[in-house]
Structure formats: C-alpha cells, structure tokens
C-alpha cells in the first residue's frame, strides 16, 4: 500500500502560530489597544496568550526605566534563536506592545505600567473583578454546580449543531446563540428556515473545546463591532473573566452598561452563572476562568464509567474497528459523523470506519487530517502505548479515501485555439501568463486554457491587437 504523504509540521506549526485572539487584536487600531492596555487584568491575560519567547522578552525589559539598545538584547540570542527572536519582535510590534524601532527596545508605556501593576498588585483599577457582598438569600453555587451548568450549556450548543438535519430534536439553545451560529457560518438556513450545519460547522465540532470557545467568542467580537458596542469594553470584560476565581461571586455594580448587556450573552454560552437575569452578582464558570490557560475548560463530562474522560476513550484497531468508551450523546454524535456505529452498550459504542462512513464525512467538508487528529487527541490511554498511536493502515486508508474523492479536478474557463501563427500564439500566451490565468498550455497544439476571470482581459487584448493590425 502506498504511504500517503502528509505534512508532519502541521501540528507543530499550529502550536507556534499565534493565538486567534492575538490575530484579531493585531487588526485593531493602536488607539483601541492602548485603551485596552490600561487595565492590568487585560495586560496579564494578553501576556499569557503570547508565546514563551515573547513573554520572556517582555519580562526582560519590564522593570527597566530606560530603553534597551537593540544590540544589547540581540547579544543574548543564540544562533538558533535568531529567527524566533525576530518573529517575536514583529508580533509584539504588531500588537503595539514593543513599538517598532531600529535602535531601541522599550515597552508601550501603558502596557508597561499595567503589567507592572498586575504583577505587584495594588492600584485602584479594580480590574480583577469586584467581589460581591455575600447575599443571605442566595448562597453562591459550589464548583460542581457551576461545572455542571457550564457543561450543560456548552453541550446543548454542540449537540444541537451535530444533530441538525438528522431528524432528532434536542434542546434548542437560545435565539442569540442560534443567530451567532448562523452568523459565523457554522450553520445555515436551508429551505423552510430550518438551521442546518455547514461544512465548517462539521470541522468546528472536531476541534478541542478551547478552540471552539475562542472561535465563537471571536465571532461574538465581530458582531459586537457591528452592533456598535465598545470593543475595548467587551474585550476587557472577557479578559477580566479569565483572571477571576472559580466559585466566587462578583458584583455587577462596577460593570459598564455594555458589559452588563454582555452578561446575557455570556450566560447563554455558559461562561457566566447568575441566579436570576436581574441578579446583582455573577459567577464565572470554568469555561471563562480557563480562557487564557490551556487546562481543560470543561470538567469531566457527565457520567463516564471510569471518570477518565478527558484522557481519551477511543480504541482503534488495525481492522478499522473502533471502540469508544463513552455514553456521552455529544461524543457519540460526533463519532457518528465519520464512523459506522453498530452497537451500543451502557458505557461502550462499537463501530467501524468504512469507506462509506468516511465518504459521508468528506462530503460534509471534514478533511482526513481532521478525522485523524480527532482520533489522536481522544485516543484511549491504552492506545498511547502504540507507536505510532493510530494504526498506519487506517490512517493511510483514510487519506487515500480523501484522495479518491479528488480524482477529478475541474476548472471553468476558455480554450483558446486556432491561432493564425506561432508568433501570434506566443504573444497572447505571454500576455495571459503575465496575468497568471493560464491553467494549461501546449505549444505544439498551439492552444491554451485560461481561467474564467482572465477571459475579459484576453479578449480585450486580442481585439486591441487585431484592431491595431487592421
């Protein structure tokens, strides 16, 4: 069996690519960012999202009063560190944390003051959340309750997505969530106004909860921009949530009107708990407090036999059989996307990866790499002894099935043929090549195929030319 090529760097690359929030922040104006950096909690959270080298660079110059000459800092960089170092500096410059300079390194003054304050404590910004006075009528929920709440909210959303169009009718998330799902292109309204999951929605389901959460929040940020909400306030509220303590109640009093309005949305996603919609206290859930960390944002999912849930539950054999030790309806539904499930037991689902099941997934827009990475991240601890983790036969076959789907590639365009002379042909071909619209050409047959969007230009070119000759 031929081994299918794939890029082994893709995983490490994504580890090193900046966090999606940072990419979003880079598109913001310097003004907005400086306003955001006024709050110590925002600075601390953003600092945590940066890559290790970037964090160390910030730390190195955080306590210096004067700017450091660039040459001094680069003297510390080792030979192999040169590229990561210049990458880090350009990321920090785009975030306006260390402004671009050819001679000196210095932190943005606002960022420096806020991060210093975050680390030493004190000040009067109240940016880490004002704790609420204990309410005698409503005692705050314990951590288990909060976790169950967050999980229920989050899984409702995912479960709704995965079972759309299957004829099942799980609990609907709130109207706002549905709107967000639709706006983000994860779901779309098909005929009859029924929401149906899209191919990017299927891909979304296979991501880890952390990535899913940020993807939705980023969409929320885009929407906030359109709703004329103050983006800085929205962002600093989210970043503040990530520095709060799980299981503690905070007061809504110091929130701005924008932020109070956000509470309703955040309740819908399960990031925040409130005992009533008008309560003057709120509790961040684990989804919120782990936003800037990589610890699991969701507690052990409800009811798995051994409780070894987040450690993986999938056993895959070389004969394409798959055993999933789970009774979680969401996980079963996700597996059902690319596995032909056969039997179900109280804590176990048995199925097989078949050509049909993978083809169905591919048709839904899920890629072979996504299937393989899902299987890898959720592999059962028993599987971790294997090297490589997943049976190579199965991995290769999934990739081959994907290739099989792409045996035919089609591109619309125009075939240019019957040129009067070779010079004529080369002249037009040259022009088309400059436009980068040539898909295929053959000088002996004296014809070439150009893409659809190049046609108007080429036709114009030929007409001008023949007019010139005539």
């Amino acid at each position, binding site marked *: 069996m031929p081994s299918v090529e794939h890029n082994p760097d893709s995983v490490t690359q994504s580890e090193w690519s900046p966090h999606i929030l940072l990419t979003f922040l880079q598109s913001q104006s310097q003004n907005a960012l400086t306003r955001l950096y006024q709050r110590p909690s925002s600075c601390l959270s953003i600092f945590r999202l940066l890559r290790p080298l970037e964090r160390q660079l910030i730390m190195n110059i955080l306590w210096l009063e004067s700017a450091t000459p660039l040459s001094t800092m680069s003297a510390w960089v080792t030979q192999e560190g040169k590229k990561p170092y210049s990458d880090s500096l350009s990321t920090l410059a785009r975030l306006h944390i260390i402004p671009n300079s050819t001679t000196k390194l210095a932190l943005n003054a606002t960022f420096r003051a806020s991060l210093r304050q975050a680390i030493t404590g004190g000040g009067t910004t109240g940016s880490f959340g004002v704790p609420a006075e204990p309410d005698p009528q409503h005692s705050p929920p314990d951590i288990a309750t909060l976790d169950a709440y967050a999980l229920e909210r989050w899984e409702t959303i995912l479960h709704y997505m995965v079972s759309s169009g299957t004829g099942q009718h799980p609990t609907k998330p709130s109207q706002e969530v549905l709107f967000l799902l639709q706006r983000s292109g994860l779901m779309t309204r098909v005929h009859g106004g029924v929401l149906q999951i899209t191919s990017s929605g299927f891909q979304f389901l296979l991501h880890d909860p952390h990535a899913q959460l940020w993807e939705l929040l980023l969409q929320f940020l885009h929407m906030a921009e359109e709703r004329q909400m103050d983006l800085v306030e929205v962002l600093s509220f989210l970043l503040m949530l990530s520095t709060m303590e799980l299981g503690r109640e905070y007061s809504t009093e110091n929130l701005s009107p924008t932020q109070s309005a956000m509470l309703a949305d955040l309740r819908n996603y399960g990031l925040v708990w409130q005992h009533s919609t008008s309560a003057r206290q709120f509790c961040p859930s684990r989804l919120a407090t782990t936003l800037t960390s990589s610890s699991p944002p969701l507690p052990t999912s409800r009811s798995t036999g051994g409780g070894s849930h987040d450690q993986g539950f999938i056993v895959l054999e070389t004969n394409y059989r798959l055993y999933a030790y789970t009774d979680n309806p969401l996980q079963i539904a996700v597996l059902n996307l690319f596995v032909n499930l056969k039997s179900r037991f109280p804590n176990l689902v048995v199925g097989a990866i078949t050509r*049909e099941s993978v083809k169905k997934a591919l048709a839904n827009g899920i890629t072979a790499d996504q299937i393989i990475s899902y299987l890898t991240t959720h592999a059962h601890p028993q599987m971790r002894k294997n090297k490589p983790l997943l049976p190579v036969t199965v991995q290769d076959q999934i990739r081959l099935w994907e290739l*099989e789907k792409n045996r035919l590639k089609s591109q619309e365009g125009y075939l240019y*043929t019957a040129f009067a002379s070779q010079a*004529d042909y080369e002249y*037009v071909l040259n022009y088309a090549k400059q436009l980068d619209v040539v898909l*295929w050409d053959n000088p002996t047959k004296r014809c070439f195929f150009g893409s659809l969007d190049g046609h108007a230009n080429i036709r114009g070119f030929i007409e001008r030319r023949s007019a010139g000759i005539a």
Partner: protein
Amino acid sequence: MKAIKGVLLTCDSAVKQILLTMNEKESFIIEDLDDYHVVIKADEEWRVRRELEAELEKNTYSLE
C-alpha cells in the same frame, strides 16, 4: 483564432479512459488535450461527475 467556453478537467489517465468511453455513448468532450487534461462542455459537468462516480463505484468492494 477562437475561444471556446468549457470546463478543464484534470484527472489521472485511468479516469480519462473512462471519460472517453462515456463520451462514445453521449458526446460531451470539446477537446482532448493530453493524458491528464480534457475540456468538456460546461453544462455537462455535473452529469459527467455523477456518471463517473457511479462507474468508479462499481470498482470498489466492501465486506458488508
């Protein structure tokens, strides 16, 4: 000189042979370029894909 609107299909040579056979039944190929490329009529693309799919499906076997 002339320009003909169409769809450029890029495929492996096996698929191309199937396409040529299909063309004998109902013609849709505008120009046979080389071993890996053919130009077909734009409005026939989906029918061709469907029939090709069915043809390829005949060559796969499963245990179930």
